């Protein structure tokens, strides 16, 4: 009886291992492929084999040294700068808003919460042209500051996950602190925030990744200010019909380089990300 159970179990496990390995391979394959492409020494953009015949680091060196047409290093630093700034602003706005909705009670709270949800249901593209002219009004078009504003302005609308997380922190803590004479300001900074590492990390991660992936807003905001492009738009222009034949390898190596910081961050922070999103989305 026990033996057959064990056999069954090990059989099931074998099947699971096989399935997971196959699926894992499928998921990793495109990433593996692009890394291989970026290291390929021989020409021909589309080839029917995966492992290059010759390996080279030339494309990576080109990427960082041939800056006349595509100033990749500069765009990389732009993106890093925009990402860091917008992630600081976004994180604070999201945490402030969600803490307020979770902990403070005031007259128009419900209205604000509903309003925020409804705003999220409109497709965002149409507003780009209006945003462009609002930024132009204050002379910000074509600047990195404009991008930072755009990426962080709407961030607080995504308050619900972190609000859900704050809801799980016992209110008794606040009450005890209030009795000890702490103001709400102190409670937020000294008690709630230190306990919210997962959700802080989650928010930081999601808002950090945004600017590395956007290729639509940059085009409208930056216009001809090529020195202020971000990598995502740079890579996107590299990949258009006319450029891709010439810059195929740079595109591949550029994509690999973009993925590096995000991958490192993500793998290190994964644990908190999961805790944050699970805590925020589900525990109730």
């Amino acid at each position: 009886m026990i033996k057959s159970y064990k056999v069954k179990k090990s059989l099931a496990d074998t099947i699971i291992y096989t399935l997971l390995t196959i699926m894992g391979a499928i998921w990793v394959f495109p990433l593996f492929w692009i890394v291989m492409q970026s290291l390929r020494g021989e020409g021909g953009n589309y080839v029917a084999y995966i492992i290059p015949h010759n390996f080279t680091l030339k494309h990576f060196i080109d990427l960082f040294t041939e800056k006349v047409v595509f100033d990749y290093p500069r765009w990389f630093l732009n993106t890093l700068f925009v990402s860091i700034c917008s992630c600081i602003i976004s994180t604070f706005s999201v945490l402030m808003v969600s803490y307020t909705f979770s902990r403070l009670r005031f007259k128009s709270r419900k209205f604000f919460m509903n309003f925020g949800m409804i705003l999220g249901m409109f497709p965002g593209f149409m507003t780009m042209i209006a945003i462009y002219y609002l930024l132009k009004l204050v002379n910000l078009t074509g600047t990195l500051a404009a991008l930072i504003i755009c990426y962080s302005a709407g961030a607080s609308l995504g308050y619900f996950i972190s609000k859900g997380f704050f809801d799980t922190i016992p209110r008794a803590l606040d009450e005890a602190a209030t009795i000890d004479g702490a103001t709400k300001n102190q409670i937020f900074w000294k008690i709630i925030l230190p306990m919210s590492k997962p959700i802080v990390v989650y928010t930081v991660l999601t808002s950090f990744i945004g600017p590395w992936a956007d290729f639509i807003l940059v085009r409208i905001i930056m216009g001809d200010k090529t020195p202020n492009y971000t990598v995502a738009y740079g890579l996107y222009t590299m990949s258009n019909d006319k450029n891709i034949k010439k810059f195929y390898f740079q595109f591949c190596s550029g994509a690999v380089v973009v993925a590096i910081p995000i991958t490192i961050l993500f793998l290190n922070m994964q644990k908190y990300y999961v805790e944050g999103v699970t805590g925020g989305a589900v525990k109730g």
Partner: protein
Amino acid sequence: MTKKTLAIILAAMMLIASLAACGDGGTESKTDSATDSKVESTVSADETGLWDLGDENNITLKVWGPSTQQELLGKQVEAFKALYPDLTMDIEIGQCEESEAQTQVRNDIEAAADIFAFPSDHLENLVSSGSLGAVVNYGTVTAANDANSVAAATYDDILYAYPLTADNSYIIFYDKTVLGAEDVTSLDKMCEVAAAAGKKIYVDAGNGFYACIFSFTGGLTMKHNYADGTETYGYTTDENAVVASIQAFGKLFQDGTLVAAGTDVAVSAFTTDAAAIIDGTWDAAAIKDLLGDNMGAAKLPTISVNGEDKQIINLFGYKMLGVKSSTAFPKTAHALAEYLSGAECQTEKATELSIGPSNLEAAKSDAVVNNEVLKAVNEQSAFSIPQTSIAGGFWNAHKALGEYISAAGADLSDEAIKAQLDDCLEATNDI
């Protein structure tokens, strides 16, 4: 008191907004006056080769060119400035791909460059939104450039832009180890030889720009109606001839030697199974990298339609320089545009970047005559339809037709093709 805080913050916001408003009000009145004072008189080059710039001085202009031409453009602009040592000119070079210029100009014409390059199919949108100023020195420009390129820069009888290139079209690139120069005069012959060698011939049938050859070769013509932006179709012989030519292409696709694939795939296929591809000059360098001296270029071949060899007719696009209608220095801007599109600058472009000139003098230069690719393009231009303003649905309409005949197992009967052609012509006028 809570609301008072809000009040304070709003007050601060208003202050900022009003400051910004003042700033903007200032610039706006400036633009208005610029528009008012914008009276274009004929700026013609006098005997010294200089344009009359009127009383324009302290000139600030911006020129857009594609990323790959920045260096040359900078040199040419400096040369123009050197013609006017007495005037202060601040001419900024901006980077904007030709295909992107239209979007940027229409998004914000104030921030757009005074002079920008764009492909001929964007002319209509730029004119209809009022973004372009008409060419004043039409006589000189018309005489200096290829007639088709002038036609492409003309909208409803008015010349709106300075023809800049005449190579936005496609030809045959072939691998000399597979095909000989005598083979590439006939598509049927090419297919025969390629098939024997186990190779293929690539054409981007899923792209209206290339796919229109299927019907143009059969004698499809079109005339643009400027009033409503539609096309009126006609036939040099009749509809049956067009159907027959589409069928002839379809048959080659169904035989399997002619294959439909994007040009990116096609170029790479030279490392595997491509004997020849139909592609534009912009890919010449990439192909050269792969084939080296074995790269051949020729004008499009003939195709046998019902036993008769017909020259393949294609669509020929041009790039041109436009001057935005709201430029603050119209005389200098037009003069600079004329200079940048002149014989000298076009010859430099052909020499340094292998870009085919629209200027007749530049077309005779060594750089063009000795360049196999540019020569082929030049020959093809005699068998082409100039890409003037085209109804918006054209691209998708012909793309769908191309996709249809190149799909495996497509029905090539007269009725089926006729129905496809009718759909295609109708969809062209979907604006």
